[in-house]
């Protein structure tokens, strides 16, 4: 017993010394705790993984810029898109893990459900996706680095009418909240430009069998110049391309337009030749020709290989981490939500998607919208950028329409 009682004194003393040094060194170098809430399991697991990978890659390449400070990511799985799990995780991360800021929120309900608590807890929350236009209005601590559905869709209305010769058009959308948002945005932008919207077609809910045949048949019979289509990325787009081929809609003289979701880079090769000539409006494609994107793609390929192509989700994760870095650097590791939001309002970044900045009035991103045409590249498909609509602000909040109408 005697021997035992003396033997633990030495390690204890060592531990005390070690603890002392940690406390001492914390005075100069802070570790900023960042809670990451994304759906790492479930239907968007691949997207969440791609976003997290981009965040980690950004951290690895830029760590030296933190000036001795460090960033620790605490990852949590928000699973299903109901918003309930994300809300619980937001609370847990703030109360138990004492994070300094939050990053993530893939589905709009995740951000909407968590917004009241974010305000209450006074924590900066950077949205990695959650594209419903009005979300930044729900809390003064929400900053969005992804895009809003109106920002992507509204400017394509005038572009379709003026540049692509769409005198008549139909909008088709997957029948859930984001789809209806896109339909409203396209109608507003297109009709304002003078276009005639012939029909607005709800193409089935997100849980139904994605068979687009009857909808495309209807579009073909109504003979518009153009059709503008939104489907949630991935599984729907491959089905859409097959039905487009079988129904011979292009041969009937209808031009395909859509949101960038339809030509998501990582899924593009699965669409097949039927998609050649499709034109979409989006905020990023891996085929963008700018130095920041070239550097990003090279770093991505070196780290993760060339099997998984990055897409707009990936770059949203990358830019979210760039925003975190900007806050940590500006505030020198001492995170205060009000100062962090102020820092981001003055933030300008040379992103792989081109120049981006945060609108000081709305805390939403200002960015270019690219007009992308699907072309054959070697054996596979690629994107040719045929137009750029520069520095687009979210039109929903600018016009004060729909969910963005001022409510006090």
């Amino acid at each position, binding site marked *: 017993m005697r021997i035992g009682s003396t033997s633990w004194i030495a390690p204890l003393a060592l531990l005390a010394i070690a603890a002392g040094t940690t406390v001492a060194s914390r005075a100069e170098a802070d570790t900023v705790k960042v809670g990451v809430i994304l759906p790492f399991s479930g*239907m968007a697991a*691949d997207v969440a993984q791609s976003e997290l990978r981009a965040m980690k890659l950004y951290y690895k390449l830029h760590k030296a810029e933190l000036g001795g400070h460090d960033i620790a990511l605490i990852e949590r799985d928000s699973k299903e898109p109901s918003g309930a799990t994300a809300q619980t995780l937001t609370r847990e991360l703030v109360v138990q893990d004492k994070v300094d800021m939050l990053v993530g929120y893939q589905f709009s309900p995740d951000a909407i459900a968590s917004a009241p608590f974010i305000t209450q807890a006074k924590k900066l929350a950077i949205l990695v996706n959650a594209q419903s236009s009005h979300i930044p209005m729900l809390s003064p601590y929400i900053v969005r680095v992804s895009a809003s559905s109106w920002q992507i869709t509204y400017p394509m209305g005038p572009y379709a009418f003026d540049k692509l010769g769409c005198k008549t058009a139909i909008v088709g959308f997957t029948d859930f909240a984001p789809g209806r948002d896109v339909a409203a945005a396209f109608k507003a932008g297109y009709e304002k430009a003078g276009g005639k919207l012939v029909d607005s077609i*709800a193409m*089935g809910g997100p849980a139904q069998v994605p068979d687009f045949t009857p*909808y495309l048949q209807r579009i073909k019979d109504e003979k518009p110049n153009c059709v503008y289509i939104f489907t949630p990325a991935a599984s729907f787009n491959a089905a859409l391309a*097959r039905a487009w081929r*079988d129904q011979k809609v292009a041969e009937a003289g209808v031009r395909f337009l859509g949101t960038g979701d339809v030509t998501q880079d990582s899924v593009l090769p699965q669409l097949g030749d039927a998609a050649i000539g499709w034109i979409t409006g989006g905020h990023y494609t891996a085929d963008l020709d700018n130095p920041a994107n070239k550097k990003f793609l090279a770093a991505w390929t070196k780290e993760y290989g060339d099997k998984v192509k990055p897409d707009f989700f990936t770059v949203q994760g990358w830019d979210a981490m760039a925003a975190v870095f900007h806050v940590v650097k500006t505030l020198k590791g001492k995170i205060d939500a009000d100062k962090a939001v102020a820092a981001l309002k003055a933030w300008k970044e040379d992103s792989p998607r081109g120049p981006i900045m945060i609108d000081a009035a709305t805390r939403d991103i200002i960015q270019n919208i690219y007009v992308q045409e699907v072309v054959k590249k070697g054996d596979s498909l690629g994107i040719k950028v045929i137009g750029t609509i520069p520095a687009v602000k979210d039109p929903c909040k600018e016009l004060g329409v729909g969910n963005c109408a001022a409510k006090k």
Partner: protein
Amino acid sequence: MGHAVQAAVSILFDGIAYSMVLFVMAVGLSVTMGLMGVINLAHGAFAMAGGYLTVTFLGDLGLPFLPGLVLATLAVGAASVPIERALYVRIYRRPHLDQVLLTIGVTLMSIAVATYAYGPSPLSIKLPAFLETQVGLFGRDFPGYRVFIIAVGLLAFLGLWGGFERTMLGAKIRAAVDNRAMAEATGVNTTRLFTLTFALGSALAALGGALAVDLVGLTPRFAFQYLVLVLVVVSIGGFGTIMGTFAAALIIGVIDNAGRYLFPEGSAFFIYLIVILVLICRPGGLFGRA
């Protein structure tokens, strides 16, 4: 007028092609439900397995389309036998809730396995040239692949119907569906009959899954995607009837297709309307025994 007729022909054609996929997928479930009374919600998982195996056989192993399709169908049928012996045999005489829990669990696991093995992104297959051409019928052009699907569906129907009505095995299955105790008393080995029918039903599900890949794409969600439609077809047609499943698939496929063409906002409403009407008038299904 001519235009409206053309549109109607297209809707009918696409609806029938859609129906044939539903029939091939649902008929196995109908027979196993009628025969064993087991609610097999994992039926969609077998269909998905057929789809993924076809992708592997055609894409990775480079087999031609038809042998790949047949091989995937047979492989899933064969693989279903040990699964039936190990898992399903335990739930035949258990309450429906236990059956639902077990088979939903199997489905969720199959989705996880598919995601792990193939990733969550949609996969596609390359059709052979002879199926990518247009087929001229009655003075109109139809997509070759859909004509092929209709042909396969009709063959499956005729083969199964003939087999059910004209062979000894079919007679045994019909006897066991009607009255299992009596069938056993006359010397029918119902256990072996169950396994055989289960394998046949799973193989047909796999064939349906493989056929659907080029229509709607293939993701791990496939295991659930068709499940509601397949259950609707089975309940309208009645358990354990080939003719009933065929009729129900045609009704659902064509009306769903026409409904979505004419009233897109109505979406799945029409299907459920039919279900309610049929089940009020004939609770056992169109061709089932009440």
